[in-house]
C-alpha cells in the first residue's frame, strides 16, 4: 500500500514538474515573428511549384488515364455485347438450319415411304388382277370341263355298255336305247356327283 502511494506521488510530482517547466519557458515558438516572412516566402515557393506542376502536368495525365480507362471499358462492354448478339444470332441460325434439315429429312423419309407403299400397293393390285384373271380362267376351264364331263361320260358309258353288251350277248344293240338308259341314270345320279 505504502509503495503504491509513493509510486503515485512520484508520478504526479513528475507530471507537475513537467508542466511547470514548460510554463517557465518562453512560450510558443509559433508566436515568435522572427521567421514569419521566411515561412511565408518558402510556403509560396513550395506550394506554388506544387500547384503549377500538379495542375499543368500531373493532374491532366491522371484525368486522361481515368477517362481513357472509362472509355476503353465502355468500348469493351459494347464489343462484348455486340459479340454476344452475334453469337446469339449464329446460334439461332444454327438451330433454324438444324430444324430445317430435320424437317427435310423427315419429308424425304415420308416421301420415300409413301412411294414404297404406293409401289407395293400397285404391284399388289396388279398381282391381284392377274391372279383373279387366272382364277377366273381356271374357273371357266373347270366349268367347261364340268359342263362337258357328263356328255363325255355319257358317250363313254354308252360305248362301254354297247361293247359290254356286244361281248356278252354278241349282238348289236341300238345305241339310242342305251343312251336313253344312260341319260336316265345320269339324271338320277347328277346330284350325287356334281351337286357340291
Amino acid at each position, binding site marked *: 500500500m505504502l509503495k503504491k502511494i509513493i509510486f503515485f506521488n512520484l508520478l504526479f510530482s513528475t507530471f507537475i514538474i*513537467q508542466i511547470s517547466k514548460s510554463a517557465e519557458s518562453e512560450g510558443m515558438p*509559433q508566436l515568435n515573428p522572427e521567421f514569419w516572412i521566411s*515561412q*511565408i516566402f518558402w510556403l509560396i515557393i*513550395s506550394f506554388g511549384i506544387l500547384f503549377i506542376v*500538379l495542375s499543368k502536368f*500531373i*493532374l491532366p495525365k*491522371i484525368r486522361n488515364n481515368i477517362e481513357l480507362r472509362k472509355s476503353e471499358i465502355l468500348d469493351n462492354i459494347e464489343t462484348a455485347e455486340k459479340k454476344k448478339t452475334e453469337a446469339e444470332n449464329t446460334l439461332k441460325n444454327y438451330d433454324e438450319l438444324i430444324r430445317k434439315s430435320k424437317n427435310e429429312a423427315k419429308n424425304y423419309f415420308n416421301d420415300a415411304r409413301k412411294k414404297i407403299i404406293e409401289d407395293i400397293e400397285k404391284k399388289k393390285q396388279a398381282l391381284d388382277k392377274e391372279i383373279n384373271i387366272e382364277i377366273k380362267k381356271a374357273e371357266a376351264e373347270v366349268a367347261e370341263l364340268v359342263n362337258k364331263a357328263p356328255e363325255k361320260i355319257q358317250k363313254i358309258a354308252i360305248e362301254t355298255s354297247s361293247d359290254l353288251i356286244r361281248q356278252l350277248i354278241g349282238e348289236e344293240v341300238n345305241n339310242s336305247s342305251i343312251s336313253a338308259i344312260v341319260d336316265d341314270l345320269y339324271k338320277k345320279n347328277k346330284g350325287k356327283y356334281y351337286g357340291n
Partner: protein
Amino acid sequence: MAANPMTQFEVYRIGPEIKINQIDISFTNASLFMIISALSILLIFNLGSSKKNIIPTKIQLLAELSYSFISKMISDTAGNKGKPYFNLIFSLFMFVLFCNMFGMLPYSFTVTSHIIVTFFLAALIFIGVTVIGFIKHGFGYLKLFVPSGVPLVLLPLIVVIEIISYLSRPISLSVRLFANMMAGHTMMKVFGSFVISLGIVGGWLPLSFSVALTGLEILVAFLQAYVFAILTCIYLNDALNLHH
C-alpha cells in the same frame, strides 16, 4: 531533464542567412519540410500518372483514387461549378495532408503547426473566395449577409452576425488546423518525456498512451487535411452558388 515539449516547434536556420532588403528569408527547417512535402507529392503523383495501364498498378491506383476522392468531394459540396477549382483544392489537400503526415515522423518538423503557415493558406482561400464571389455576382454577393426569411426586426442583428462569421472564416480555418497539430504533437512529446522520466518501472503506462496517441494523431492529420479542404469547398460553394 526532460525536453520542453514546445522545442519541437522551434524554427531554426539551415545554411546561410538570406536577406533581401533587410527581410530575412533564410532557408529553415520549416522550409525544408515544405519542400520535402511538395516534392514527395510530385514524386508520388508523377509515378502514379506516368503509366497508362488499364489495370492500374498500386501507385497508379493511389493517384487515381485520390483524384476521384477530391473530385467527388468538390462535386458533392460545390456542384459542377466547382470543377475549375479542382487543381487548387487538390493541391491544398495534398499539401496539408503531406505536411501533417511528415510531422508524424520522429525528429521531423510539422509545417502546419505554425499559425503563420495555416493563416497564410486560409487568408489565400478567403481572399480568393471573396474575389470569386464578387466576380460572379457583383455587389449581389453582399446578399450572402442577408439571409432570406428572417423577420425584419432581427435583420440588423443577423446581418452583423453573418458579417462577423464571414470575416472569422480565415481565423477559424487556420486556428483549427494549427491548434490540432500543435496540441497533438505537444501531447505526444509530453507523454514521450514521461516515458523517459519514469523509466523502466512506470514508463509503460505513458508509453501505451503514446502508442494510442500516435494512431489518433495520424487520424487527426488526415482528418484535418480533409476538413481544411472540405471547408474550402463549402466557402467556394457560397461564392459560386449564392444560396441565401
